[in-house]
Every structure is written in structure tokens, then in C-alpha cells.
């Protein structure tokens, strides 16, 4: 079959050539990914492994990390977690912050997004820019501003509340009950990112869906509930995830307001602040590693639970 050979010979020749190209592509590809791969091992994976190792030691940060400067103490650090007088209260502070802040972080940006998406709003770009503006304000500056505006005597919020007839407005950062909600108010200032992606998602909802619903006689509220919310649910879920992760890491504004002790009366002693104090103020790195691991595990499991529910509740257009 002379014909067959003439046809198959070039094929046989080109095949190794393609795989050489292919090999070249793979090598280049890995080369491009290498900065991240190296960084992931050095700055994420190894440190996590070492954090887990440290939980079984009594290493103090005051000496060099070397054999002989620490002992293996088994599960002592984990046992200490149960007797730590600050562990549960500080987790309570973090949970309180999360329980108020996460719903606010979902609803307020959605309301803002609906407002700037309204076809009746004149100058939508202007509004979008200024609703976003506080998001770029550095946390430290925002904390200073809210410390002032929520001042019990001279702050504008309490002056306004008094003018509205509230004789005894909250004492915000001076009151153990109100200190966390005051930080939640500061948190509302950073809803810009969530607002923008919700807005983009609102604009992506096909108008035919609304038109069809109008033909069927649906009212605006039922359109919002049955079309808008399901269509933007992936973004709501994304915001929820970020809000959850952020809440469990949150402590910087609390420390700026209440110091390392989380004043007033420990009401701002967030769990990550407790961690920071153990690790870098008391240099108790073995035990602090347990606290770090708690933050990690709580974040991970909360996200895991959410992804589990998201499979049923979130609508992915054309998803798998």
C-alpha cells in the first residue's frame, strides 16, 4: 500500500514535533507559575505546617528558635485553651461583631447598588463615586474619624440624636455594650467593593426576565424577590464569604480604639487581638499558635458550611 505509507510518514514525523511543542508549552507554563508556587510553599504552606507544630511546644518568642529553647508539651496548649479566661469572651466579641456586621454588609451595599442602578437617579456616576469614596479611606484614618463623630459629648451623631429628642443617646466607645456596634458603623463605610460588584451583577440580569414577569402581572416586590435576588445570589454569596472571612480576622480598629486590653472593660478584645497579644506582647508563641489555628479552622469550617448551603441556594447561570 504505497499510498498509505506516503500519507502516514509525514504524520509520524509531525507527531513528535507536536509533543516537543507541547513540552515546551508545559515548561514555559510552569516557569510562569513558579513565583507563585515558590511563594505558596515559603509563605503559606510551610508556615501553616509550622504553626501546627508550634501548638505542641512551649516556645517563647524571646529566645532564638532552636532545639533546646523549647520543649514538646503535647496537648498542654490545647488544654489551656479551655481554661483561658480570655478565649471564650474574646470569641464572643468577634461573634457579636460578625452577627451584626455580616447582615449589614449584605443589606446596605445592596440598597446602595439598587439606588445607583435606578433609572430614575440623576447623576448615577456621581453617586457611585461618592458612595465608594469611604472605601479607599485608610482604616486608621477612618477609625480616627469615627472616634470623633461618635464622641459621646461632641460627636455629631449624638448631637443629632439629641436634637431628634433622644435624651440619652448611646455612649458608643465608652460603653461596653455599644463599642462593638460602633465599630460596625465604621464597617459600613467600607461597603464600596460589595456595592460595585452587586451593581455589575444587577446590570447583568437579562431584561427579558423582568418583561416576561410584567406580562404575567408580577408586582415590583415579587419581581425583586423572585428574579433579582436569585439572579444576583452568586454575588451575594461572594460578599457573604468575604464578610465572614474578614470578621474573623478583624481587630485593628478595635486595638486603635480600645488599646491592647480592648477597653472599655474588654468589650473590644476581639479574638485576633487576644492572639496578637499572646504572640507579640507576651511572646507566648506556643499557645498563640493554638489561637491562630482556631481562627484558621473557624474560618475554614464556616466557609465550608456556606459552600455546602450555596450548592442549593445559589443560582449559577449555565453552571455545572
Amino acid at each position: 500500500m504505497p499510498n498509505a505509507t506516503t500519507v502516514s510518514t509525514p504524520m509520524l514525523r509531525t507527531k513528535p514535533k507536536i509533543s516537543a511543542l507541547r513540552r515546551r508549552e508545559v515548561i514555559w507554563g510552569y516557569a510562569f507559575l513558579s513565583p507563585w508556587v515558590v511563594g505558596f510553599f515559603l509563605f503559606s504552606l510551610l508556615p501553616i505546617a509550622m504553626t501546627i507544630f508550634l501548638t505542641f511546644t512551649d516556645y517563647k518568642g524571646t529566645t532564638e528558635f532552636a532545639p533546646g529553647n523549647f520543649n514538646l508539651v503535647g496537648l498542654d496548649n490545647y488544654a489551656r485553651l479551655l481554661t483561658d479566661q480570655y478565649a471564650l469572651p474574646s470569641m464572643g466579641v468577634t461573634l457579636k461583631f460578625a452577627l451584626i456586621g455580616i447582615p449589614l454588609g449584605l443589606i446596605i451595599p445592596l440598597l446602595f447598588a439598587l439606588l445607583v442602578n435606578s433609572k430614575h437617579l440623576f447623576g448615577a456616576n456621581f453617586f457611585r463615586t461618592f458612595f465608594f469614596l469611604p472605601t479607599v479611606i485608610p482604616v486608621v484614618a477612618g477609625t480616627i474619624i469615627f472616634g470623633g463623630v461618635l464622641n459621646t459629648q461632641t460627636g455629631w451623631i449624638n448631637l443629632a440624636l439629641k436634637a431628634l429628642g433622644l435624651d440619652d443617646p448611646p455612649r458608643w466607645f465608652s460603653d461596653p455594650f455599644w463599642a462593638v456596634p460602633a465599630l460596625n458603623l465604621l464597617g459600613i463605610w467600607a461597603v464600596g467593593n460589595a456595592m460595585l460588584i452587586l451593581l455589575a451583577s444587577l446590570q447583568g440580569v437579562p431584561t427579558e426576565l423582568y418583561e416576561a414577569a410584567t406580562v404575567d402581572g408580577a408586582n415590583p416586590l415579587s419581581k425583586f424577590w423572585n428574579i433579582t435576588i436569585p439572579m444576583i445570589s452568586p454575588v451575594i454569596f461572594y460578599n457573604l464569604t468575604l464578610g465572614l472571612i474578614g470578621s474573623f480576622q478583624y481587630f485593628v480598629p478595635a486595638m486603635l480604639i480600645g488599646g491592647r486590653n480592648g477597653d472599655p472593660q474588654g468589650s473590644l478584645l476581639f479574638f485576633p487581638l487576644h492572639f496578637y497579644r499572646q504572640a507579640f506582647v507576651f511572646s507566648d508563641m506556643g499557645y498563640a499558635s493554638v489561637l491562630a489555628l482556631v481562627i484558621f479552622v473557624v474560618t475554614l469550617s464556616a466557609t465550608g458550611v456556606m459552600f455546602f448551603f450555596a450548592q442549593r441556594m445559589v443560582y449559577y447561570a449555565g453552571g455545572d
Partner: protein
Amino acid sequence: MSKRFLRHLTSTTGVTFLGLAVMLIFLMPLGYMLATAFKSESQATVQNAPLWPAAAATFNFQGKDYPLYNVPTDQGTKQLALVSPYREDSDMVDPANPSAGVFNVKGRWRVWEPVYTFSPTLENFSKAWEQVSFGLLFRNTFLIAIISTIGDLISCILVAYGFARFRIPGKNILFLIVMATILLPPQATIIPLFILFNKLGWVGTWLPLLVPAFFANAYDVFLLRQYLMTIPREMDEAAMIDGASPLRTLISVIVPQAIPAITAVTLFHFFFVWNDYFGPLVYLVGKENLWPISVGIGAFVTTYGTHPGLSAATAALTLVLPALMFFFAQRQFMQGVVITGVEK
């Protein structure tokens, strides 16, 4: 005017005014900051002084300044200068008619309202600038931001290109891991990193803040990858056929087309550095000379937080640059935010 147009006009007015009201409340703290920053220290201690930067108005009469008061008279409220205050009456002069000279007015001067004029002062700003050594903090923040932004851009562009264009085994798993690192709380790694950097002698220097930036980060890789995937492949394939290496193609074909995404990443990273508190707090403890603005201002707040005017001026100085940058590049910035959030 048609009925429909009229209805449109009413709802536009209504929604726009609602928007303005919401925005006013939302940005009110910024108003507080500006008003307080420009107030003099003496005004802060006066009871019932106005909320805006003000000074008590005076009237110069025969070479001396006398304070002005809103005095209720038969002809309505008049602004009169108080020359000699007594208990139940006072000697006043009318600035509108000084030639009439001093005359006596019945009534307690203490219940009269002083007249204020708008009078912003820069004293808080100059004081804050000196006490916080803003010059040094700005310099440090800029240096850290510039160096780490360069590292972040180089590494993230390379990695994003790898994810966007190359068919390599395990790519999807790797990308999933990149995304998962967003979940990683900084607390989970900071102790070992501190120990590592301490061993290297890097604690007390900027290196722990700069070096990791050269190894890419998840957000920026994701944003760039999404953008690179929208660039048509024909362009780089043409370059490859012409014999350009992948690196050459990246630099001369891909990067010029990805400028909007690169701008967004640059801004994100700059804002991150401007904001980052935890890293410098841990690695630069006791090194005031090396502090970036976040930690420098943070230390200032805990000492001087009780001075409203000084604090407000400090906050204003801290946020003015990020705010200006945002205004100038808001389109790229907002697009970048949208790409990271929606295109999952």
C-alpha cells in the same frame, strides 16, 4: 408636557433627592472631619460654639475690638458690639452707626447669642504635621509601596499569564489553591514567618514587607488572569509564529493591552500598603524611623486621640492622597473591583 414625562420627572426628582439624603448621612463623618480639622483649639472648649470653624466676630471702635452679639430690640434682632457689660444692662455700640456713640441697652448680655464668622484655621494641620512627622511617614510609605508594587506587578503578571495562556497539567487544581489562599487568615502564618524573618535578620527592616510581594498574590493574579483571558489569542499566536519567545510575547503583546487591569492592580496594591497595619506593627516594632503611615498614625492616635482638632487634621492628611488617587483613576479602579467580584 405629556403625562408620562411628568411622571418621569417626579420620580427622578424623588429618587435623586432620596439619594442625596442618603449620601449626606453616609458622608457626614467626612464633614465632621473637615469641620473639626479647620477649627481652632479655643473653639473646641467654648460651649454652644457652632459646629463649623468659626471665630467670635468683633467690631473695632475707637481703636479697641469689642465682641458682637445678636441683641433683640424693638426693631428686631440687631448685631451690636458690647463695650461695657453690666449685670442687667450693657453699654453697646451699633457697628452700622458708630458715630452715634455708646448707648445703654437693657437686658442680660450673657443670654445674648455671640455673632460668629466663618474662620477656618490651619493650626491643627501645622501642629499635626510636626507632631506626627508626616514627611518621614510619607517617604517610608512611598518607598515600601513603590518597591513592593514593582514586585507584585512583575510576579502577578507572570503568574496570571501562565494561568491564562498555557495548557499545563494540574492547572485547574493550582488555580483553585491560589483562590483558596484568599481564605487564609494572616494570623495562621505570622508566627512562623516572624521566626523565619527573625532568623534571617530581617525583623526591624522592610524586607518582610517587600520580599513576599515578589511572589504574587491571589487577588491580583485573579484580576489579571480574568483580564488576560479577554485578550484575543490571535495576537500572541501571531507573535509566536514570528518566533517570539513566550516572555517576549508577554512583554510586547500582552502587557500593552492589559494596561487597564495593570493600573487597577497597581492601585489595589498601593492602597493595600497604605492600609496595611498588622505587618508593619509586627515586623517594625520599636523602629519608628521605618514606620509607614498606618502604624505611625496608629501610635499617634493612642497618645493624642483626645484632641479632636488634631486628630481630625491627622485623618485628613492621611486620607487625602488615596482619595485623590481614587478620583483620578476611578474608572480602572472600579472596573478592577468588578472583575474580582463578578466573574467567578
